[in-house]
């Protein structure tokens, strides 16, 4: 009795195993069917994108006008304010 039960279990395990491998095979076939472009074409597309996109960190290719640089603008305002404080002048309206 127990041996029949055991056999059933091993059969079941084998079935699951088979199912797994068949699933893997379908997925491998999907991978084979996938459309691919050559690495050289992909490289050219990437190079094209990189060369065309403005990147202001690279200063010898792209320059950000200072009036568009929020960090510069803020620093300017702050230094103006501190200058006014330092000069000690105030206007009474």
């Amino acid at each position, binding site marked *: 009795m127990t041996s029949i039960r055991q056999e059933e279990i091993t*059969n079941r395990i084998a079935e699951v195993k088979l199912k797994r*491998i068949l699933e893997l*095979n379908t997925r491998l076939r999907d991978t084979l069917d*996938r459309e691919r*472009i050559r*690495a050289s074409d*992909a*490289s050219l597309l990437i190079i094209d994108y990189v060369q065309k996109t403005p990147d202001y960190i*690279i200063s010898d290719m792209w320059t950000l006008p200072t009036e568009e640089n929020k*960090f510069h603008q803020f620093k300017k305002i702050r230094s103006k304010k501190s200058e006014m404080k330092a000069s000690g002048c105030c206007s009474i309206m």
Partner: protein
Amino acid sequence: MSGSVLKAGDLQQSILQAKQEAKALFGEVEDIHLRIRDTTLVKAASSIRPLNAGSISLKLYHTLRGHQNKVAQVRWSSNSSQVLSASQDGYLILWDIVTGFKKKAIFLENQWVLTCAIAPNCENVVSGGLDNTLTVYNVSSKQPGLSEYEQFYSSVSAVFKGHRAYISDCDFTSNHHLVTSSGDMTCAMWDMAKGSKVRDFVEHLGDVLCLSKFNHISSQSDRPLFVSGSADGYAKVWDPRCQYSVQSFSISNSDVNCIKTFPENHSFVTGSDDGIIRLFDMRSDCELSSYSLASTLTSHDNQGFRSNGNISPTSVDRSSKAESIDSNYNIPGIVSLDLSKSGRLIYGCYADYGCIIWDTLKGQVVGKLGFAGHSNKVNQVRVSPDGIALCTASWDQTIKVWAA
């Protein structure tokens, strides 16, 4: 009895057959990969002018102080005006990046936070970590007449439980949808309107350590959503409409610690524990380029050896030398990486060397922030969405903002 024995024999036979077929298919896939990989990005870009020395203009703009412990992660808001930081002191802090002021500090119930993110509309922020829970906080509204304690609890707008291990990384894919990666080997998608998990992404065979979403505009919804990197050495591309990953890439034999989609959305870069940054393209389904500090250092050293008048090494010598030099340098893993706005620059944080800047097209090191003035390990680098600033975060409890 005899029938079941026969059946068992049949099963074994079919398993064997299926296995052989799998082997043959694997071979075919390998062949295709070999045929497709006809060049590398660096070779294809040989006619591009290299960047001049000093062409990278990064100046320290701010040091953000306020955390009392290691900073775990930093994230930019989509409009590049705010930065969210999560620290192991148990706080999320939202900073105004231009003034350097704190806009909001959120005290977390669980101090062991690993990751945080800001919604595109800046109304919600989220944290996740070792408590296996994702918590969403509302940061836009303030209800009048509540004590600070009540204010805090009213700010929690969702608590997502479901992962069975730590949450390693997360991001908003829309104002109401989140994706997470977890140590339970899965990724998950969560819906704030539904208040629950929408689906699991199960396929990795190790802890999922990182993810990065693709930046599509909503009209391009027929595209994959995000890519994940795992301790099993694989990166997988996921589309919510597919049961399995749509693409799977074998990266290395070590943990994939960090991953970032390339700005044009058809490729991504990975950083792994073996110290190598790699660029993969999804259209051609293969690796286009790799950036290794170890090989850069060894090639410098080999030149040094030759100029010293040593006998030029034979191929056998060279390999043994490379090995010994490798072991000398013992290249540390990559803990964080990001790309500049155009993708020309890769910022990589190495466990022992700090932040190093690579030229993506030429495959050379073009700059070094190093420890960037931090007094401890630099564990995060993030470029702002508008591309004119970046921040580095460190175990020394501070965040530094660098601007063009």
